[in-house]
Structure formats: structure tokens, C-alpha cells
């Protein structure tokens, strides 16, 4: 099977979840406002079913 070539121009912004982090806290880091966590949740609906359930090491898209 051919290996998928990495796109050097992919501008998707990623965040790897660390111990103790919540979507609220991640939103505060990137946006300065925790209440905008829904933006991150919506951008990751394919992997996140519940905004309160994120796992350490999980990679999240940050729009």
C-alpha cells in the first residue's frame, strides 16, 4: 500500500492534550476566552462526542 504523502502546506492547527487540560482551558490558551471552547469542540466532532471527555495525548484541531 502506498504511503500517504504529508502535505507540507497543511495549515491545520493542532494541540496535543496534556494531563489536567480541559477544552475550556485549551480555549483560554488559544483564544484568551474559555467560553469559546465550543469552537474547538465543533472542529473536532468527528473524534469528540462529549466536550468533557478528552484524553491525554489526543490531538485536537484548533480553528
Amino acid at each position, binding site marked *: 500500500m502506498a504511503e500517504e504523502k504529508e*502535505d*507540507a*502546506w*497543511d*495549515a*491545520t*492547527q*493542532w494541540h496535543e492534550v496534556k494531563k489536567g487540560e480541559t477544552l475550556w482551558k485549551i480555549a*483560554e*490558551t*488559544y*483564544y*484568551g*476566552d474559555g*467560553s*469559546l471552547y465550543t*469552537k474547538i469542540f465543533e472542529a473536532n466532532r468527528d473524534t469528540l462526542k462529549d466536550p468533557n471527555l478528552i484524553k491525554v495525548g489526543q490531538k485536537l484541531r484548533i*480553528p
Partner: protein
Amino acid sequence: MIGGGKRMKKWLKPMVLMVLVLFVAACASGKKPAEEAIKAAEAAINAAKGEAMKYLPDQVKTLEDGLTAAKEALAKKDYKAALSAAKDLPGKANDLAAAAATKKEELTKAWKEMSGGLPKMVEAIKSRVDILSQSKKLPANIDKAKFEGIKAGLPEVTQMWDDAQKAFSGGNLADAISKAKTIKDKAVEMMTTLGMQVPAGAKS
């Protein structure tokens, strides 16, 4: 001695004439090769010029200057100099055509990469700016004045991208690339200011 002088005079006239004939013949024989060399050089330069002007205009000018020098020498009846100036020009014109083709290939590749990547960068910036605009307080690493500057500069970047695409559609690849590079630099600066990860392709 006087008699010898008369004999000399008798031979001198035809001798001078012969020398003159030989000189004129020598000059005339150099004219045709010089003219032909100039004709060949001009044809080769004209053939290479079209594409080369778009990608290597300085080198086209060098060849044209060489051709002008050859023509000037021809006009002054200095056929040796005219031939010398013109004889290498067809080969140089062929080299220039090959170099222009290589340059075009490089620029096309660069355009292909940037035209695929830049819209992704601009979209990512727009998305981040849109969300940050809804924030009650900007993150500590983002300066408010700089953020406002980015917000105000985004329409200009979009306009520049439209211009770059128009230049490409119009066949002006070098101009399109130049505009795309400016957009790339601006996008990288914006992403860095916003604390975003810059794509690897945009770092080179």
C-alpha cells in the same frame, strides 16, 4: 640611379594598384561571413527572446548588446570585429532558451506549491481572527494593536492573492510568483503574531 628610379616608378603604379585590389578583395571577402553571422545571431536571439524575456530579461539584454556591437562593427566596415562579435551569439541564444525553459519549469513548480498552500494558510488565519474577534480577552501572547493590524490587513492579502492569480492566468508567471511570495511572507508573519504553527512548506 636616376634610371633605376624611373624603372621603379614604372613598377610602382601596377604594384600599388594590385595591393589596393587585394586589400579591397580581402575586405569584401570578410563582409559576407560577417553579415551571415549577424543574420544567424539575430534569428537565434529572436527565437529565444519570447520566453527568455519573461524569465531572464537581463541575459536577453546582454545578447542584444552583443548583436548591436556586431552591427556597429559591420557599419564601420570592421568585418573581422563584426564576425567575432556575432559568431558566438547563436550558441549563447540557444543556451539562453534552455535556461529560460528551466526557469519556467522551476517557477511553475513553485506556483503549483504556493497556489495549493497559500489559500489554506489564509483560511486558517481568517478562521483564527474570526474566533479571536469574538473573544472577551485576547491571550497574553497576542498584542491587541498587532491583532487589529492583522484584522485590517486580511482583505489586502485576499486582494493580493486575486492579483497573483490574475497574473498567472495572464501568463505572467514571474509576476504571479513574486506576488505569491509577498503573500506568503505576510501570512507567515500573521501566523507567527497570532501564535499559530506555520506550515513547513511556507518556511522555505
